[in-house]
């Protein structure tokens, strides 16, 4: 892994050369740096605000250390320009931020010629809670409870990345049992997300039987989540230094019997898709992201693997007990909604297999180690493969094991821009389908 650092001269100009013209995937990161710190990426092609909307007065840079979170900030009325296409016969369709379904908020502008989308621009960060700033100065073990709540469906992913960053900095190794229990909840999170997302994809095309089958199977998994961790979204298991709860024979048996029941039921649901021309017509060749685009934008996870990019951070940079587990990484090349669906379908089988391995190999031993004093102002990374792709946290620890600064980058962050490539060329009614084939969490991105 390589880390690029930009060093600013003291009293020099608050700017740095943009790398976006060379690496398109850097565009959002640099816009956010400009928003949050007022450091200008010189040569960036699109320096519109990303995270901060028109309501924040000019000249406020929330992540600067001299900005106090307790300062009352007045409401400004700036402009928030959206990118569209103009011309004869082209019209614009604004959608959101409040949508028709039970989903998270985002504002979209579709530039249309007839039914075809020519351009899509998105305004996100309606859910921006400033979590990274809010936890600055808090003890690392306390701030964990805010980090765990960055996103509901990525609870374990954010917890793991954050805790691993702490543990890497502290130089502690987890007891084997804790590593296996963490992998168990990580895979349970992937399982309920994938099964739910596959069902949800059907909502993008009004295939009610598929929606309900997915929702029913997801509910079964979430109930086992609760039996295991006391929480349907698996909160309260992973903690800095290890895990909080143990597993016993009865719970292992409950998980195994859930899997035994799930697999045939799930396969039958997938059969409803495979032989169904009306279904395949909708998903195949819809929302294509070519391999080169995926590489250029740094797309991760399911999105990358569906566009022929063979990445999985569990295999490429193993953490916890993953080097002791066997699994395949499914890769498809067509880059369309169908490919993203089949990647998930194959991963469900892999994940079920992983959970069985984890339960069979579960070592004995303690669940936790204490976190010693961490050298102030040391910084490091933690990462994991969330259901959507790799999730990375960068943490700098301050005095007395407090958070000096955190950067939480969820998988949805590099994948969002891919959606603006996938949508053009399709018709608006296909957008929900394309959107759901990525199933990008807004809360993860907005923080």
């Amino acid at each position: 892994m390589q880390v690029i650092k930009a060093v600013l001269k003291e009293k020099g100009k608050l700017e740095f050369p943009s790398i976006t013209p060379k690496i398109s995937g850097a565009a959002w990161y640099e816009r956010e740096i400009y928003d949050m710190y007022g450091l200008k990426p010189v040569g960036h092609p699109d320096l519109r605000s990303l995270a901060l909307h028109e309501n924040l007065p000019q000249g406020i840079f929330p992540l600067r250390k001299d900005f106090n979170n307790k300062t009352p900030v007045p409401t400004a009325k700036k402009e928030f320009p959206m990118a569209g296409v103009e011309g004869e016969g082209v019209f614009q369709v604004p959608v959101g931020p409040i949508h028709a379904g039970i989903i998270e908020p985002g504002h979209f502008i579709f530039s249309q010629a007839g039914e075809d989308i020519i351009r899509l621009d998105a305004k996100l960060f309606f859910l921006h809670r400033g979590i990274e700033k809010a936890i600055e100065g808090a003890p690392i073990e306390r701030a964990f409870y805010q980090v765990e709540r960055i996103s509901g469906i990525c609870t374990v992913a954010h917890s793991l990345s954050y805790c691993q960053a702490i543990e890497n900095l502290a130089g502690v190794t987890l007891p084997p049992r804790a590593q296996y229990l963490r992998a168990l909840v990580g895979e349970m999170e992937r399982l309920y997300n994938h099964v739910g997302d596959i069902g949800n994809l059907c909502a993008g095309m009004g295939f009610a039987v598929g929606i309900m089958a997915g929702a029913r199977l997801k509910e079964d998994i979430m109930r086992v989540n609760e039996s295991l961790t006391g929480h349907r979204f698996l909160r309260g298991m992973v903690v800095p230094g290890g895990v909080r709860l143990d597993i016993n024979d009865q719970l292992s048996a409950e998980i195994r019997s859930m899997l035994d029941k799930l697999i045939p039921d799930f396969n039958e649901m997938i059969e409803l898709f495979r032989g169904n021309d009306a279904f395949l017509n909708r998903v195949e060749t819809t929302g294509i992201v070519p391999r080169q685009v995926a590489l250029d934008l740094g797309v991760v996870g399911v999105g990358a693997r569906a566009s022929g990019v063979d990445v999985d951070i569990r295999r490429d940079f193993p953490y916890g007990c993953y080097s002791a587990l066997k699994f395949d990484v499914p890769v498809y090349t067509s880059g369309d909604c169908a490919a993203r669906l089949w990647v998930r379908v194959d991963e469900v089988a892999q994940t079920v297999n992983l959970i069985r391995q984890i339960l069979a190999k579960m070592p004995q031993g303690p669940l936790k180690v204490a976190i010693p004093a961490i050298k102030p102002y040391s910084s490091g990374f933690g990462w994991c493969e969330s259901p959507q792709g790799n999730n990375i946290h960068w943490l700098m620890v301050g005095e007395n094991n407090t958070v000096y600064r955190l950067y939480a980058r969820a998988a949805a962050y590099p994948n969002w821009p891919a959606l603006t490539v996938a949508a053009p060329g399709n018709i608006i009614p296909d957008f929900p389908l394309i959107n759901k084939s990525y199933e990008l969490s807004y809360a993860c991105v907005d923080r």
Partner: protein
Amino acid sequence: MLKVWKKVIATGNVTKPWEKSVPPERSRGEVVVEQNAACKGCNICVNVCPTKAIKLYDGSPMINQKACVFCGLCVESCQDGCLKQTSNYKLATLGGSLADNTGSELNNKIRRVLGRSLHIRHVDIGSCNGCDFEMNHVCNPVYDIQQYGIDFVASPRHADLLMVTGPVTRNSTQALLMTYEATPTPKLVMALGACACSGDQIFGESYAIRGAVDAFVPVDIYVPGCPLRPQAIIHGLMLALDRM
């Protein structure tokens, strides 16, 4: 098509009455103060709570249910066994028009108009999506909210009740206010989850969070939880509609 029908028939009916399924043993719900608690006033629980939901009053802990995320840290940390975690999720409380005027004309009218057929619009203004997904889950075939004459609609213009999730963020304030405006009266507002009920207590003070939902629009039903389980949502609705 035949396969679809076969699958539908083979699956059969999976819907259960909402109160029927009992939370599992480990389930974390309401934290209660033990009756003969021998609280020494050590403040350990107060300091350990990640959302500042506990205060000591008259020498015994008091929990603000609206801000509690049921993490159970206070229960684990108390040396004197004063606190106990239960699996109780029926914590919804009424506020605003429903609480103030119990039995009054207005109250009766709301319930008469909305009681048997309630249409809901979801407004997410800062949630981590945990609460949103649980709202989705009340529509799954196991809970099947529609069997109670309750459904989700696409526009606030068609809604009787707004279900709001998340603390009010700077960036969503306008969306919340405009959605509230767009909803015809009589209307109800339900604050779903610890964030919506308590504001910045979950994530802490931040330039990006403006407060709890009731600081911006009147709230009629509070349902605590982080997130609240689907049954807690149904409980809140039944309580509001006087159908408990």
